[in-house]
């Protein structure tokens, strides 16, 4: 059991709360930096995907996990970012500038989607974002002069002021750098007054409003930031795949993104990363275990959907805090050994609250 004795105010503000944090996160950083020498090229590519999805997940976590607004059309922001990046890179714009534009355009679109959030909430907001996602997908498919329509569009390697990032390792470092930047940005945002306003809105809109929080401003801001991160993720995604088409940004992708943050653990920054790891490694695990299953099960095309569905149902039923919640329990068990009690993380039962009454 670790007791932290606070001797200065700076300790409250520090991102690393104690020596253990410093040690383990440094070890993680070392591992990530050394990854190109440690892992084969295929696994490095998977790690790149994990980082990209984690960036998108951070954005969705900010919106869904910390502000309590659910978006069923997040793939649309991903798509806007990816297409902006593709079009601008192919026009010869350098990578950082294109990335900023992708983020900016996504954020602008996010503000537009955020506007209904001021009037509607709960399931209606979900419907609005769902509808918006469909419309963006259709626009991407139909605006052929810019997006290439359903045939898709190829994208050149990122050009970092003359340095062409066309190797897997180079792009991995680029993604790592942006992911670290995004994580630090989110962590800092969450301990600022803006982040606290987001959490207040999530917990109770009425109390947040009574405390003088401008709901309209903060909800729109949350949508914009979330969309911007999704746009950055989309831009990197486009570069990684080198080919994008509208059907990569459909409702399935949106639901996968939600599944990622829910399984990772809503309301935790770790959750975005854990969820991304889950989302990327699960298909690999399934294909690895396929050979050991009877052919009727292992070779069936629907296996992946069944596994995803069962895992999702199991998490909602038994571990609503997701993978991160599971880790908290394991950590508490280790720290308190042998004094861990069954009921320590028990969910509170409550009467159903109606959101039909505003």
């Amino acid at each position, binding site marked *: 059991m670790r007791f932290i004795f606070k001797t200065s105010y700076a300790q409250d503000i520090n991102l690393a709360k104690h020596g253990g944090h410093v040690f383990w996160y440094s070890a993680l950083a070392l591992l990530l930096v050394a990854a190109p020498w440690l892992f084969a090229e295929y696994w490095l590519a998977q790690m790149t995907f994990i980082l990209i999805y984690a960036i998108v997940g951070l954005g969705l976590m900010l919106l869904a996990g910390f502000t309590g607004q659910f978006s069923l059309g997040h793939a649309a922001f991903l798509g806007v970012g990816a297409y902006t990046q593709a079009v601008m890179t192919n026009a010869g714009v350098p990578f950082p500038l294109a990335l900023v534009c992708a983020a900016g355009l996504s954020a602008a679109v996010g503000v537009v989607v955020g506007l209904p959030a001021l*009037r509607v909430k*709960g399931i209606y907001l979900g*419907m609005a974002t769902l*509808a918006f996602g469909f*419309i963006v997908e259709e626009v991407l498919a139909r605006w052929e002069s810019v997006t290439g329509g359903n045939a898709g569009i190829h994208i050149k390697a990122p050009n970092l002021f003359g340095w062409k990032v066309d190797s897997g390792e180079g792009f991995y470092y680029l993604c790592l750098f942006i992911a670290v930047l995004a994580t630090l940005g989110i962590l800092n945002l969450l301990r600022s007054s803006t982040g606290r306003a987001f959490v207040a809105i999530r917990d109770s809109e009425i109390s947040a409003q009574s405390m003088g929080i401008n709901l309209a401003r903060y909800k729109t801001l949350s949508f914009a930031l979330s969309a911007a991160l999704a746009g950055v993720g989309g831009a990197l995604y486009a570069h990684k795949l080198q080919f994008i088409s509208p059907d990569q940004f459909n409702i399935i992708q949106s639901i996968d993104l939600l599944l990622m943050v829910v399984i990772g653990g809503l309301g935790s920054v770790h959750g975005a990363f854990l969820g991304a790891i889950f989302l990327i490694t699960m298909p690999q695990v399934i294909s690895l275990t396929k050979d050991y299953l009877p052919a009727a099960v292992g070779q069936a095309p629907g296996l992946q*959907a069944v596994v995803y569905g069962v895992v999702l*149902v199991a998490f909602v039923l038994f571990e609503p805090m997701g993978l991160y919640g599971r880790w908290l329990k394991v950590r508490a068990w280790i720290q308190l050994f042998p004094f861990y009690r069954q009921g320590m993380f028990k969910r509170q039962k409550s009467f159903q609250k109606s*959101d039909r009454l*505003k």
Partner: protein
Amino acid sequence: MQFLQLVISGIAQGCIYGLIALGFVLIYKATETVSFAQGDLMMLGAFMGLAGMTMLGFPFWAAVLAAIVAMAIFGVLLERIVIRPILGQPAFSIVMLTIGIAYVARGLITMIPNIGTDTHTLPVPYKDQIWKLGALVLNVEQMVVIAATAVLCAGLFAMFKYSKLGMAMQASSQNQLAAYYMGIPVKTLNGLVWGLAAAVAAIAGLLLAPITFVHANMGFIGLKAFPAAVVGGFTSLPGAIVGGLVIGIVESLSGFYLPDGFKDTAPYVVVLIMLMVKPNGLFGEKLRKKV
């Protein structure tokens, strides 16, 4: 004449949306949760009808009844096993739960060897028949959809208005706690509502099957029923049908008069406008909490 023709096919399509939306509204009213599995329940119902007709060799009516009853039981079991344990949790958990159920249902159907990945036609007695009414060409399949929806709506309306069960459902949908204090078995009712919603979904599936085909991904049409439910107001049963009709007609007309691509997006554009202008829908209740 062309216009009328388009409107009629729009109404038939709209009836399907309306029936699926009816399922959403039933569940939303009773348990305050939104079921994303409704489209896939519809798919399951269609497959059950198919199994009854082709594999078990039931006559048409027996197969239809068997599919509806089987889906109703399935719905009750679903509520009992997965939904009830997390009642009272945030609405979003239940949404994710139903998305999970939808994934599992779709995956399991796809996994059935030789059947799951194919498209099938449902052998109904009224397949490919046409009535000619002057210059109008009426497709019997579409007429059956419209008639069945009308009958079903009348039945549901009568049940909610006059039967004890229906009134108990209304009471528990308005205030679960108060209904519970009045001696209404709220938990059993929730199970029954899920059963009812699944049965309605099965009917929608059986009606839709002759028009499209029976396949594992037909549940995605449920995503178009959301606009229907929102337009009608998520809390109103007649609203769901009206919303479905609006969406169906808009889709059918925009598919003909507007350029390509508008057919699939028109329902969503309508829903966005609706949410901006009248977030409670056409028939939604306007409730305000008194502090």
